[in-house]
Structures are given as C-alpha cells and as structure tokens.
C-alpha cells in the first residue's frame, strides 16, 4: 500500500504545525517519522489516518486521493501512545472489536483473535481486562487490535514511549519481526533516533513542521542534509569556524576545505568516531586532556579538552581504552580523520554538495 503526501500543511488556530510536507512511502516499507517533540510528526501520522484533516495539500493511498475519506473507511490500524484500550472489554473482545464492526462471522472472528493472540504472545491473557495487564502486554494488545482487521497500513504513534527500557527493546524487535512476517506498510512516530535507526528501513526527519530529510538510516547518518539532521541523528561535534589562509580554523584546529575565501564563516561537524586518540604524544599534532570518560557498555565516550578550553567528544572501544592505558586527567594527542562542512555563512547545503573530507587522502596537510 503506497502512501503519498503532497504539499501537506496543517494549521492549528493560525499556527502551522506541519508546513508543506511531501513524501512517499512505498508498499511494505517500515518507515519512521522522527523529530523532536512538537515538530509535527504526530500530526502527519494523524492526517494519514484521517483523525486530522490537512489544511492544505493532498494525501494519496495507492494513487487514490483520500482527503475526504473518513477515518472509519480508511482501513488503517492505529496504535496510540497511551494504548487506548477499551477498559470495559477483555483482551479478546478488544482484539475482536474491529472485526465485529466489519461484520466478520463469529467463527472467523474467533479464529483471527486466536491467531493474533498466538502471534503477539498473549496466550492465557484472553479473558483479562486491560487494567490487569502490564504496560508491555497492553501495548501488544493494542497492536493485536490494530492488526486484527488486516489493515492496509499500520500507524503507530510513539508506540514504545510509555514502557520501560527493557520491554521497549523487546517490543521494537517484535515490531521488526511482525513487519517481516506480515509485510504490512508501517509508519511509526518516534522522537528517539536510536529507535528509528534500529527499527525502520527509511527515516523521515522533521524539524519545526518541515521535512528535514528522508533516507535510509545509513544515509541520514552518513549524509545528513543539514546541521539539524547531523546533530539529531547520533552525536556530532559542531564548530563555528572562520577561514584564514584558505583553511577553516577553530582555535588550534584546522579544517582544509575546497572553494572557500578568507574571512568566510563555516560550520564544521565531525562524529566522535572520527576523532583518533593516542597516548603517544608524538603520534598526532593536537593535544588534549582527557577530562571525563563515560562507560556506555562496549563503547566509551571521551570528553577531551583542548588547550584553548574547547571540549570535543570522541568514541573508543573498551579494549582500546585499556590498551592505551588511558585515565582521566591524562594528556593525549589526537587527530580528526573525517569532517564535513555543515553550512557556510548561514546557508544550508543540500547533501550532494556537502563533501566528506578524508584527511588520510591528503597527507600533505599535516593534521
């Protein structure tokens, strides 16, 4: 079921929540709508479902315009952040609700409910009422209820925000597995970039009601279209540099860049993994003091303070940290292997112009 949004705008009392957004979701995709709170992503989802009507623009489902099709007739499955289960109905009745409305026979309903109970691991909970279930179980019932009438598209609004971290991980995996199995076009809203990267095969990023970028998780991470995307997806060090003698500089750091003129201001960004750190002070040209180490599991995050007082973030495996015999307060040398020009003089560059420099290819620069 392909979905197309054309120049969709939504205003609430004169304030634009969504502004001229267009994108297409192909059949069977699992797409994340990602952005900070209040960026309009939930509103976009609600407009696709029919719960909200766009102020301007058109929505097409399988090539057919659905702007005037009421929510009841769109054949969608919607999973709400707060579960929205019918509390006066048992688990089985909740799941069967949509089927009753579609006038399935009792036998068909029972078979479908049993199928979903098994699929979502809700065995022995059929006769419980929602208040007798845990958060994760409730969310699985909500998912089963949405899937029961075989919707053309499954829409999920921050589906895992209300459950604890461990259950959230299980539910994410379950969603991916379900999508593999059922291959139903799925769009879900999240503010968690990690969740979007892990679960979806395409990410639509919103910034203040506008579309910031669409791409695979890899594309938005490696080829961010704007500084906003670069900073929102993963961690990025961003420096406001000025060009002197053809080289963008920030304090002691230098970033050779093509096509710049002296005095121009640039925003340069680099990922923590691009910062190479050595305990050998002769290995690299820049020096820094290791101020703080965060243990995040297999990977560690380091905060390095340059002589000018600038703090940059680096990433390192636990093994390397041990091998280099690093401790907080110790002096290290470093180099930045990869960086990217995020913007020049306030202008935002489209992705194809943004160049990733690999310093290993230009040994003469001496950084």
């Amino acid at each position, binding site marked *: 079921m392909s979905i197309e949004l054309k120049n969709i705008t939504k205003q609430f009392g004169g304030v634009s929540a969504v502004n001229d957004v267009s994108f297409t979701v192909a059949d069977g995709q699992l797409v994340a709508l990602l952005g900070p709170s209040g960026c309009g992503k939930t509103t976009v989802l609600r407009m696709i479902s029919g719960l909200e009507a766009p102020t301007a623009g058109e929505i097409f489902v399988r090539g057919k315009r659905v702007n005037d099709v009421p929510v009841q007739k769109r054949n969608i499955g919607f999973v*709400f952040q707060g579960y929205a289960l019918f509390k006066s109905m048992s688990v089985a009745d909740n799941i069967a*609700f949509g089927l009753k409305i579609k006038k399935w026979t009792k036998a068909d309903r029972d078979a479908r409910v049993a199928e979903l109970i098994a699929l979502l691991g809700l065995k022995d909970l059929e006769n419980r009422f929602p208040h007798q279930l845990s958060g994760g179980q409730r969310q699985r019932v909500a998912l089963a209820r949405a899937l029961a009438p075989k919707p053309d598209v499954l829409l999920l609004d921050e589906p895992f925000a209300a459950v604890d971290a461990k259950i959230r991980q299980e539910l994410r995996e379950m969603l991916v597995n379900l999508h593999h199995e059922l291959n139903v076009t799925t769009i879900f809203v999240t503010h968690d970039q990690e969740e979007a990267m892990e679960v979806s095969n395409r990410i639509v990023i919103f910034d203040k009601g506008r579309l910031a970028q669409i791409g695979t998780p890899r594309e938005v991470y490696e080829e961010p279209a704007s500084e906003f995307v670069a900073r929102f997806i993963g961690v990025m060090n961003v420096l406001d540099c000025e060009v002197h003698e053809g080289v963008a500089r920030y304090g002691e750091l230098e970033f050779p860049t093509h096509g710049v003129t002296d005095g121009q201001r640039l925003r340069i960004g680099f990922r923590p993994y691009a910062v190479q750190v050595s305990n050998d002070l002769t290995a690299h040209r820049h020096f820094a003091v290791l101020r703080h180490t965060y243990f995040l599991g297999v990977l560690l995050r380091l905060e390095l303070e340059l002589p000018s007082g600038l703090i940059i973030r680096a990433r390192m495996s636990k093994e390397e940290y041990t091998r280099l015999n690093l401790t907080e307060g110790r002096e290290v040398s470093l180099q930045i292997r990869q960086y990217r020009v995020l913007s020049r003089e306030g202008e935002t560059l489209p992705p194809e112009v943004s160049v990733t420099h690999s310093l290993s290819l230009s040994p003469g620069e001496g950084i």
Partner: protein
Amino acid sequence: MAEKSFRVLPGFGLTMGFTLFYLSVLVLIPIGGLFLRTFSLSWADFWKLATTDRALAAYQLTFGASLAAAIINALFGTLLAWVLVRYDFPGRRFIDALVDFPFALPTAVAGLTLASLFAENGWLGQFLVPMGIKGAFTPLGVVIALTFVGMPFVVRTLQPVLEHVDRDVEEAAATLGAGRLRTFVSVIAPTLLPPVMTGFALAFARAIGEYGSIVFISGNLPMKTEIAPYLIVIRLEEYDYTGAMALAVVLLVISFALLAVINVLEQWANRFSR
C-alpha cells in the same frame, strides 16, 4: 505482620476503632433502638399497623416517585455532566455552579417555589394545567420535587469520571471503523455505567428521605399524594409512637434492601476495573 511498615498517618487500630465508634453512635445505635421499640409489638400488630391501605399508598408513592425521579436524573444528569465536561461555552462555569443549587437551597424553599410555579395560576402552571399537566398537588409534583433535589448527585458523581475518559479511546474506536453511535454504546457507555449507577443510587436514597420540598408541592392528600415520611409525622402528631415506628421500620428495611441490590448491580457494572 513480622515487620511494621511505615505509615504517615495513624495506623489501622486507631482509625478502625474510631470508625466503629462513630458509626455506632450515628447509625447503628439509633437503628438498633428503632428495631427494639418495634419488637415490643407482636408480629400481627406490627403487620396491621404497617400495612394499612393509607400506609401502602404512601409507600407506593414514596418509592415509585423516588425511582422515577432517580431514573430521570440518571438520564438527564448524565447528559448535563457530558455537556459540562465535553464542551466549552460561555456561561459553562455558571451552569456548573448552578448544579449545586439544590444541595444548598433549603428544601422547604424549593418545595414552595415549585408549588407556586406549577400551581394553576403559577408561571408555568397557567400554561401546563390547561394542557392537562398538573404539577402541583399531584404525584407528578412529587416526582418534580424529587428530581430537583436529586439532580446534583448524578452530575457530581459522573463529572470526575468523564473528565478522565481518554479521547484516545474514541479515536481508537474510529480507526477500527466504529461510527459515533457504536463508539458511544460499546465503548463509552460501559465505562460510564458504574458512576451513573452510583449517582442513581445516591439520588434515589436522597429522594426516599426527602420531606421538606414535597410537603409543599404534594398537598398531602391521603391515599393520593401523601408520602410515607409525612404519614410518620402524622402518626407522631397523634402520639401514636408505635404506629410511626412500624412505618419507619418498613421504610428502613425497603431502603436497605434497595441499596443492597443497587450495590450488587454497581459491582457487576464495574467488574472490568476490579
């Protein structure tokens, strides 16, 4: 209990002791006394006193009119609560405040006002009486007065529950294809039934006990518009204490039985949240 768990307020022993004492002084001892006094009658005497034609007519009016008033309140009180919670309109707060009016107004004043409104020459009566609707000095008048005094119970019981009904749930029903009527009947109504029944029970109980407003609007015609509490007063004025006691015991037993039935129904309606 092996270990005493920490409590901010005094624990079970003290509060339970006080509760029992309080309940005894205010409820159990008076009721016990009432029963004891009636036990001085033989069963046959009691039965004769409690089931005179006049008494039977009075019970019928008291419970019938109370039931009618409570049903009217359950329906229109629900509607009123829904409007007050769901919609924002000019004067909403004023109307909301008005709901408490029957609580605060002395019931005698209410009875007097209603009686003068519905009397043949009253504001409403002058139009209604020619149409055959007699609101004063008739059983209908009793129902009107009881509806008035019982109205706030349903509204005030339902309001907090309605405020907590998630819009999400209605939207979820819509995404599954349910129209408005279906959503209301299958999804919303079942969750509202328990508080509506609680409000109904409170309004009903209040109506059975109502006296002040009715004596003005009903006219107190024996066998026609005389309520049971009024008959008790008459018996007392005749110094017929045992006669009054017999009527009181009947009222007490029926009220208790009705409330017990309503309680069971409430539990059933609320089965999904226990």
